């Protein structure tokens, strides 16, 4: 075969593929335009940004000018969002994950400085999100150094109350487990529906006497069982890799509950989407344009506090955020119900809505 005929033949194959590419513009449009755009925006802004507005409780036991100055200086730059609180209130907020740290200015703060001694600031941290607590402590240490010109300096008494010794892997694991759940939901729930329709196997269910609702429910259960299995496998792998799970058997049950609710929600969502999807190709595009961004903007990979404002709003509307939060809270901090109720309530509501919408659309499509 000569080189010319080789190129001619390759051209024929290319020609046909390009023809198809142009003919069905939705898939290539999203793939070659939307997707790169989306990735650039997400990767460019979601990751590596500096954290801002980190909620930190401040307990002022010293109301002197020096102490007030110190604290107001901490509030500059927008990194920390200072919330004045009483001591007990502050530690409760830390426990319930309302704040990432507690800064306590002791009553003898200014007197010690005035006496030329070493003043102390107590910094209590929640290390569940290591990037955030690092940002907080470097801000506090920096400010302490800046104030050290007066007197013998300020000593920061750092104390990690929650999530001591957490590594990035520990932080990442819950997010990855949730990602496993959502991906396998889409590929077991949605995909199986698309395949059933494409290959007509759904017909055999439709002509049999079992009810339409039972078909939907059966499909959903199978999907949930499959995604739950992969979630558990991910959990086991995380455990083997040394991710510390700071909870006992009851915590394990809560983990399963979270995975189960999330599984139902995502299976419902994938069912709703699958009704509108006719080909595998489209499912891939949906996965790439909806699922991947949902995961990146969930705080699973990188803390939400370091994302730009608009992205935080998306994160707040993203059910994955709540699922990841809940799972992370149980795995890294143990069972503290107050930190879990909101997250679990949100994902439960999401699951119900999605199951309803999914089964409604599915039922409509088969009757």
């Amino acid at each position, binding site marked *: 075969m000569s080189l010319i005929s080789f190129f001619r033949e390759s051209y024929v194959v290319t020609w046909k593929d390009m023809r198809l590419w142009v003919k069905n513009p939705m898939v290539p449009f999203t793939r070659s335009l939307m997707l790169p755009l989306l990735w650039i925006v997400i990767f460019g802004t979601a990751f590596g940004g500096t954290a801002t507005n980190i909620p930190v409780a401040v307990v002022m036991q010293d109301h002197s000018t020096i102490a007030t100055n110190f604290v107001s200086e901490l509030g500059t730059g927008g990194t920390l969002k200072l919330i004045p609180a009483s001591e007990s209130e502050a530690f409760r907020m830390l426990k319930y994950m309302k704040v990432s740290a507690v800064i306590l200015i002791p009553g003898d703060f200014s007197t010690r400085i005035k006496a030329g001694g070493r003043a102390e600031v107590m910094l209590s941290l929640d290390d569940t999100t290591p990037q955030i607590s690092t940002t907080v402590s470097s801000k506090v240490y920096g400010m302490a150094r800046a104030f050290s010109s007066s007197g013998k300096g300020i000593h920061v008494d750092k104390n990690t109350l929650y999530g001591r010794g957490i590594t990035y892997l520990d932080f990442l694991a819950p997010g990855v487990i949730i990602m496993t759940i959502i991906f396998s939901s889409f590929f077991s729930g949605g995909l199986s529906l698309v395949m059933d*329709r494409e290959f*007509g*196997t759904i*017909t055999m*269910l*439709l*002509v*049999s*006497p079992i*009810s339409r609702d039972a078909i939907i429910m059966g499909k959903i259960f199978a999907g949930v069982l499959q995604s739950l299995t992969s979630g558990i496998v991910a959990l086991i792998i995380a455990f083997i890799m040394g991710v510390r799970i700071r909870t006992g058997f009851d915590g394990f049950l809560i983990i399963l509950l979270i995975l189960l609710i999330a599984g139902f929600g995502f299976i419902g969502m994938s069912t709703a989407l699958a009704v509108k999807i006719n080909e595998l190709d489209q499912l891939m595009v949906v996965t790439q344009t909806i699922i991947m961004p949902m995961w990146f903007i969930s705080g699973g990979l990188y803390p939400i506090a370091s994302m730009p404002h608009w992205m935080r709003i998306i994160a707040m509307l993203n059910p994955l955020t709540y699922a990841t939060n809940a799972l992370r809270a149980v795995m890294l901090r143990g069972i503290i119900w107050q930190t879990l109720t909101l997250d679990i309530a949100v994902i439960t509501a999401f699951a119900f809505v999605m199951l309803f919408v999914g089964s409604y659309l599915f039922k409509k499509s088969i009757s």
Partner: protein
Amino acid sequence: MIIETRNLTKEYNGIKALKDVSFSVKEGEIFGFLGPNGAGKTTTIKILTTLLMPTSGEVYVNGYNVVEEAKKVRESIGLVPQENVLENDLTARENLIFHGMLYNIKGRKLEDRVEKALKFADLESRADEKVRNFSGGTKRRLETVKAFLHSPKIIFLDEPSLGLDPQSRRLFWDYIEKINKEEKITIFLTTHYMDEADYLCDRVCIIDMGKILDLDTPKNLKEKFGEGEVVEITVPRARKFAEILKEKCECNIIKVDEERLKISSKHKERALAEIFKNADELGVSILDISVREPTLEDVFIHYTGKGIREGKGDFTKAVLRRFKG
């Protein structure tokens, strides 16, 4: 009557796929729906099997209304659809077991039925093999025994021998007859193969463009139409020749083109004499001539004016596909 439709009409976006279709099927017979692609055969089967809702008209299957008593209808029927809908990654046995479970057949009874079905389909030795490896004919056989695993009253077969080679087709027809005779199950099938309808069916309904053209036994249909035998002649200036013949002898012109002519006549001998005499007078020589019994294809052409294989394309299928998606 095990199936009865009265003025059945089905519309898709204002286009009528079925127009006022009324027919009935007797218990125990093999009933054929014969027509080209897009005639409305699949639409009819989908309505009879509760997969589609009729736009208007009444449809009863095994005495139940397909709209109001869909579940009862579903319990009474088995379906072998056009496309292969077996689970390719399950074995033959698993496919049958799943099917039985759908119809709430359990335990010992299910085992017995599955064994029987495997035996019936000659698949005992391959029962635990994945269906993916089976040939088209084998899959079709499995699919058909699956359809009667739950002892339905009626089995619907949509274009059952589509894509089968001649040997498999003949084997498959024998299977259908066996199911019909031994299991006493009414068979409703659609086909666009004349020979299939002729070989298998007790009665045939000819349908085109959503309308019933005739319904009778294959024998009656052939007799009704032809009033005798079919003569096919290859001759130059066939059109002119046809005009002359029409005047001179009592015969029907079925089809004529440049140099081929097809006629039917009750009096074979007289027609042949006329043909040769007129050919001489016109000064054309007959290149070929044959006399045969009429086939259902002749009947079909008589009704629709065209051969069945030159259908109007897959219009109905295209519409259906849009609705499915």
